[in-house]
């Protein structure tokens, strides 16, 4: 991991098209500006993690409990066989 020190107004370039600028900092908070191409998604990590967790949960739960919601064969039909 690379650790750099920046003053407000100074930037870091990641590759050739992502620029991260420290806007301001005070005490425990830093304001950061990020310029990146539109296809680069940028998220607060905890938000991204929350969605990742929701996705994992959805994938896990997808298996058995959806059955009642599927369009089912008529049970009566099956009894007749």
């Amino acid at each position, binding site marked *: 991991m690379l650790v750099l020190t920046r003053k407000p107004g100074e930037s870091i370039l990641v590759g050739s098209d992502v620029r991260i600028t420290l806007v301001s900092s005070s005490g425990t908070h830093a304001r950061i500006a990020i310029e990146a191409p*539109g*296809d680069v*998604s940028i*998220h*607060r990590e905890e*938000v*991204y*993690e*929350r*969605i*990742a*967790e*929701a*996705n*994992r*949960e*959805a*994938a896990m*739960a*997808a*298996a058995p*409990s*959806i059955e*009642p*919601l*599927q*369009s*089912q064969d008529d049970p009566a039909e099956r009894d007749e066989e």
Partner: protein
Amino acid sequence: MSDQIVFENHRFGEIAVNESELLNFPGLPGFPKALRFVVMEHDRDAFFAWLVSVDDPDLAFAIADPWQFFPEYDPPIELRHLNVLGVEGPKDLEVMTIATFAGETVRLNLVAPLLINPRNRRGMQVIFDRTSLSAREEIRPAEAEDGAANPPASVRLQAVPAGSKVDL
């Protein structure tokens, strides 16, 4: 024919589809290596369809058109999302949401819908951070139960075609 691909999914067994039916995603949060999917519908009128991973045999998501359940849903889709997907008109965008089944309840992830361009088969899951939308919006039990076999006419009538809410 030659462009048919066959893959295995533990839920559905062996699946054969034309390559042209594949949807390409740049991965999904939590599943960065799941790049190719197919949509499987059990019934055109069903409330839920399956988004089945071609790359991970254990992975499938139940998905739903959010407007079936939440007619007021208004995801703040941005121009850059449309650009990334190559959307050129309203027909190039479908919006689906991932459903989670938990006991008696069904939840839709309205914060992070799937945007799909059916023309070029590209999709992405976007995250609408800083909105009041919920990642776990519950479908009211009555709706879900009725929706099982026999969707109530009122709900169906409220359904808004995916993409129609987006100003291009």
